[in-house]
């Protein structure tokens, strides 16, 4: 909320009232028609709010832009955005609306035209607040600028916790961002990489394949707190869950789970031990329900699709045999 009102203020300060009023229909046309391509840059259309996309096109002057919008270009811009019902003035208003967004991004504090002086600012405020109510286009330029400052250059995947660059994987406790380096005890703690030496690797999580580590006896975690010799009660039963579409079916192995867990960890609170009684979706897993109680937090995350979706369907086979028979 606070952020939106902030954007609204930016617009109120930046837009001259007169052009803001004319902008209403331009904005509507943009939202209805132009945004189909210009919001995301389909067919390399200059994107709304991206000053870098517009500056080479603005070099030819805004008259050139109006002409291109009205008559279309060979690159893919259809005449009048593909809707001949719009008048020339309406198309120009839509172009102005898109240009206003990149002018704001370039210099948010200064009004683009000094003509704003004789316009009453009170009228401008509600109209200018309207674009802020639809956060996507208005928020885009500000947000990209801010994150670009916050992230180190070249680290384009930094937003993704599952794609950690090599330098940020398994750091020692004083450098991991959650331990306090000013605490003496932090420096006495074991660095994860020391413990992982010799353990089989994986592509996600701790980047250790824990299932293989326990299966090949690289580690031998106790099943019982006090008794190191106690053997786990392992249950070897695969449950196949058929899934929609062409995604391979899920094979759930009890074996690998009972090597770590007790039956009561999952049954009956998370999974009712009865066929067909559990509705599971990827959405619920991402929300931390069902498999997501562990997978995505402590067990391998959902980026490793094929570790669960491992049983291929023979979808293509009937078609292929039919084709073979025809030959």
């Amino acid at each position, binding site marked *: 909320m606070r952020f939106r009102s*902030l954007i609204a*203020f*930016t617009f109120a*300060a930046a837009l001259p009232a007169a052009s803001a009023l004319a902008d209403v229909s331009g904005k509507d046309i943009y939202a209805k028609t132009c945004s189909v391509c210009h919001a995301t840059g389909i067919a390399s259309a200059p994107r709304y709010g991206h000053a870098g996309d517009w500056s080479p096109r603005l070099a030819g002057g805004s008259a050139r832009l109006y002409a291109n919008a009205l008559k279309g270009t060979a690159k893919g811009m259809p005449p009048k955005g593909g809707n001949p019902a719009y008048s020339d003035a309406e198309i120009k208003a839509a172009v102005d609306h898109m240009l206003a967004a990149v002018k704001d991004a370039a210099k948010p*504090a200064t009004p683009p035209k000094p003509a704003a002086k004789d316009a009453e600012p009170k009228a401008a405020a509600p109209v200018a607040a309207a674009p802020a109510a639809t956060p996507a286009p208005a928020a885009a330029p*500000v*947000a990209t600028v*801010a*994150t670009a*400052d*916050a*992230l180190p250059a070249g680290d384009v995947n*930094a*937003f993704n*916790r*599952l794609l*950690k660059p090599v330098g*940020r*994987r*398994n*750091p020692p*406790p004083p*450098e*991991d*961002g*959650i*331990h*306090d380096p000013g*605490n*003496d*005890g932090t420096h*006495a*703690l*074991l660095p*994860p990489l020391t*413990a992982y030496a010799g353990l089989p690797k994986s592509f996600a*999580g*701790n980047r250790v394949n824990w299932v293989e580590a326990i299966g090949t006896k690289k580690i031998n*975690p*106790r*099943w*019982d*707190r*006090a008794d190191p010799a106690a053997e*786990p009660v392992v249950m070897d039963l695969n449950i196949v869950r058929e899934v929609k579409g062409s995604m391979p079916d899920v094979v759930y192995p009890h074996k690998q789970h009972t*090597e*770590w*867990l*007790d039956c*009561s*960890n999952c049954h009956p609170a998370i999974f009712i031990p009865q066929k067909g009684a559990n509705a599971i979706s990827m959405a619920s897993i*991402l*929300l*931390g329900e069902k498999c997501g*109680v*562990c997978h*995505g*937090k*402590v067990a391998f*995350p959902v980026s490793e699709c094929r570790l669960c979706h491992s049983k291929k369907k023979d979808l293509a086979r009937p078609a292929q045999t039919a084709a073979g028979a025809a030959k």
Partner: protein
Amino acid sequence: MKLAGALFAAVIMALVAVPAAAEYADVVLNKRSEKEGVRPVVFPHWFHRIRFQCRVCHHELGFKMRVGANDVTMNEISEGKFCGACHNGDIAWGADRCDLCHSGKPGLPTGIFGGHETGGPGRW
């Protein structure tokens, strides 16, 4: 405007920077710690799973598999419950080594770090 922009950048930075490079499944416990004047506790799953299977803590010791669902006090630990079942100076270091467990950065929220969950507005 500039100030507001800087504030916004700071918020974004905080959202991006906090979980930084925490090890997958590191848990921060800060329900009581800072109110009691000590650093938050960092519990590393990776260290414990090399030595104990999940069931030992999540079944025998009664830790619920939900961050924030476990109310653990130092009294209970001294009585041998929860962490105290092992952190008794016998199986692992005892409750007198405050700084080994209470080693988190001040101000960290209770939560599980290093996973796929975001801390920002896109939180699932």
